[in-house]
């Protein structure tokens, strides 16, 4: 099958989708007019039948045009009207009489309108983004910014240049000019850290604190560079509040690694999902509201019989469990949850007024992880839940991510390929798959040792994270093999992007003891949407990589369909 044809289909589909969106908004305008009549109690039987048919049509078509949420919402409203509409259609009497409609109908229509508005905005944005030729320049969500504070004579310029080669965006500013410092702090909201000389730490800290106090910025960690690696100097810096110290000559990969992990921590969402098991429904409601207003998703279960089904459907990060729920003991329920292997590592926290340490210990031994003492203040509840969700997520990240690089593990990135293929089918967009491999990696290990091999692998992982968009997925596929999924990206653009990353990577110099070395990489690119299943796409990218290896490595080959 020719890829040209596929491109045609997706273009046609995209055009139709756009047209549908316009019509759906018009339909919803009509529905809104009826909703207004409903609110005034003026909706006629005929109007209701009209609404019912309109909703039925939306429910049956929105999904085909890539708007499943709209379809589902319309279906729910359709159901609300169903019995009334069918009755009216059958009775055939005066259809101009006014009738009462189910509560929530009018509000439901307003919600539909919102869904369509959001969708139009999003599709407008993506179109704008894709039509921009420079999509791969600076638009990658993960590029990490670093603010370098340097009064000019401190020799940090070469360090900035070095960091830029690792894909960081370095903003240099003279810390003696306080106005420009404030400006840079305000203009670089995505910065991960401040870099400065150790002798300047005191000044830099006070500038940072001023900015933080004004609400211009989060409290950025300060990393300092210096010659004096003595205990006394480091103690002094720690006392001033520095976050890390790197002794000159700076180990660049390690510095890059440290900043990278700060950036990941910052972007990791600490929001979570909490299931509350509590028979006092008012209290449960209150907890839910408090947590929800802090951006945490919360759901309450008051009947223990609902507990297991809700766990499966809601998939919480943690469970807050009352010690006694009606006739049921929370301790026993915790044990019951652990019957299922998938919930073995789910953190269960007791909400309890139990302050007898012996009873607490008994509960802990039976499967609960911790206690929160009732009464819990709102603030304390939010903070402790947030921390626990964060830890729970970190733990599951640990299980899903490769320990050396922090990238997705083999099986997970493979799943991402399948998922992206399904999305391509549904929305008709093109996406690319890239298989990357370090050239002559065995020689690096043999010549310099595995420690340096690991550094090379980690460096490439960091460079990829920096240069790719947040929506791209990166995995470590094998020893020195990486797999990248680039949604909404044509193969030619993908090949160009990877070629440039390869060039940047080849420029990096790894120093090992007295010597130094450089490494190149080879890549194979394939269009995910050209294939019937993920395995075929992987096979194609692998073949392209193999071709590249045979024709001299160091570069990119695109798989061609023949």
């Amino acid at each position: 099958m020719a890829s040209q044809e596929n491109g045609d289909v997706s273009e046609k589909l995209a055009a139709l989708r756009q047209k549908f969106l316009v019509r759906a908004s018009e339909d919803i305008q009509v529905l809104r007019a009826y909703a207004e009549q409903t609110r005034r109690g003026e909706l006629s039987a005929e109007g209701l039948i009209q609404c019912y048919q309109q909703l039925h049509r939306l429910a049956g078509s929105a999904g085909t045009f890539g708007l499943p949420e709209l379809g589902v919402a319309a279906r729910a409203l359709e159901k609300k009207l169903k019995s009334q509409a069918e009755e009216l259609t059958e009775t055939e009497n005066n259809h101009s009489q006014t009738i009462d409609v189910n509560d929530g109908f009018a509000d439901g229509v307003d919600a539909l309108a919102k869904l369509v508005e959001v969708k139009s905005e999003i599709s407008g944005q993506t179109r704008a983004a894709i039509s921009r030729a420079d999509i791969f320049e600076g638009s990658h969500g993960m590029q990490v910014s670093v603010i370098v504070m340097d009064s000019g004579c401190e020799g940090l310029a070469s360090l900035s240049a070095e960091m830029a080669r690792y894909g960081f965006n370095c903003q240099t500013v003279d810390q003696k000019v306080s106005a420009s410092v404030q400006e840079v702090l305000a203009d670089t909201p995505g910065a991960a850290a401040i870099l400065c000389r150790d002798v300047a730490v005191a000044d830099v800290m006070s500038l940072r604190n001023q900015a933080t106090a004004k609400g211009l910025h989060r409290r950025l960690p300060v990393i300092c560079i210096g010659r004096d690696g003595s205990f006394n100097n480091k103690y002094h810096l720690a006392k001033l509040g520095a976050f890390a110290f790197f002794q000159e000559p700076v180990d660049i990969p390690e510095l890059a690694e440290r900043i990278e992990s700060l950036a990941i921590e910052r972007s990791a969402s600490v929001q979570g999902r909490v299931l509350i098991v509590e028979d006092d429904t008012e209290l449960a409601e209150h907890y839910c509201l408090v947590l929800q207003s802090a951006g945490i998703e919360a759901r309450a279960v008051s009947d223990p019989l609902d507990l297991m089904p809700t766990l499966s459907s809601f998939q919480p990060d943690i469970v807050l469990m009352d010690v006694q729920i009606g006739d049921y003991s929370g301790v026993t329920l915790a044990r019951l949850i652990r019957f299922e292997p998938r919930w073995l590592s789910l953190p269960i926290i007791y909400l309890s007024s139990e302050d007898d340490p012996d009873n607490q210990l008994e509960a802990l031994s039976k499967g609960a992880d911790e206690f929160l003492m009732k009464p819990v203040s709102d603030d304390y509840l939010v903070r402790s839940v947030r921390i626990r969700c964060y830890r729970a997520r970190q733990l599951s990240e640990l299980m899903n991510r490769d320990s050396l690089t922090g990238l997705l593990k083999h099986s997970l990135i493979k799943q991402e390929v399948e998922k992206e293929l399904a999305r391509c089918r549904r929305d008709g967009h093109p996406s690319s798959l890239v298989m990357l491999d370090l050239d002559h990696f065995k020689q690096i290990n043999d010549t310099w040792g595995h420690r340096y091999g690991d550094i090379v692998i980690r460096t490439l992982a960091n460079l990829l994270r920096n240069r790719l968009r947040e929506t791209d997925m990166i995995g470590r596929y094998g020893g020195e093999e990486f797999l990248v999924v680039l949604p909404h990206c044509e193969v030619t653009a993908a090949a160009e992007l990877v070629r440039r990353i390869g060039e940047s990577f080849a420029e990096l110099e790894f120093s090992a003891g007295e010597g130094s070395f450089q490494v190149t990489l080879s890549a194979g690119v394939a269009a995910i949407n050209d294939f019937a299943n993920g395995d075929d796409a992987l096979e194609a990218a692998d073949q392209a990589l193999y071709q590249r290896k045979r024709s001299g490595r160091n570069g990119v080959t695109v798989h061609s369909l023949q």
Partner: protein
Amino acid sequence: MVPKKESVPQRVMYVEDDPDIRAIAEIALQDVGGFTARLCESGAQALDVAPAFGPELVLLDVMMPGMDGPETLRALRELPGMAQVPVIFMTARLQRSEIDEYRALGAAGVIPKPFDPMTLAEQISEILARARMEP
């Protein structure tokens, strides 16, 4: 017994009142599925078109103004040469009782709406293969 070579339909007729769905179905059937498709906007039009077009498969939307899907099916069956043509219903209201009802009317199967334009052709061939197994 030598298995007969399974005949894959070439000419497909799709009856649907919603113009947007007709447009996307045309792509799903012709560009993606490789069929020769004929789209009709109503049951009445389908009855006009069918004798000359000679569809090897008919897709019928269930809920249409005027003649609905089941009515169209009954009328189609009366036409010469149309008594045996496989028919698939397209419906947004998927209930067990309904599927059974359509089967009883002689439909080869039911495809739930919304359908996925990229896989509609596959869904069709699955239904036809299944219908052949259990005549």
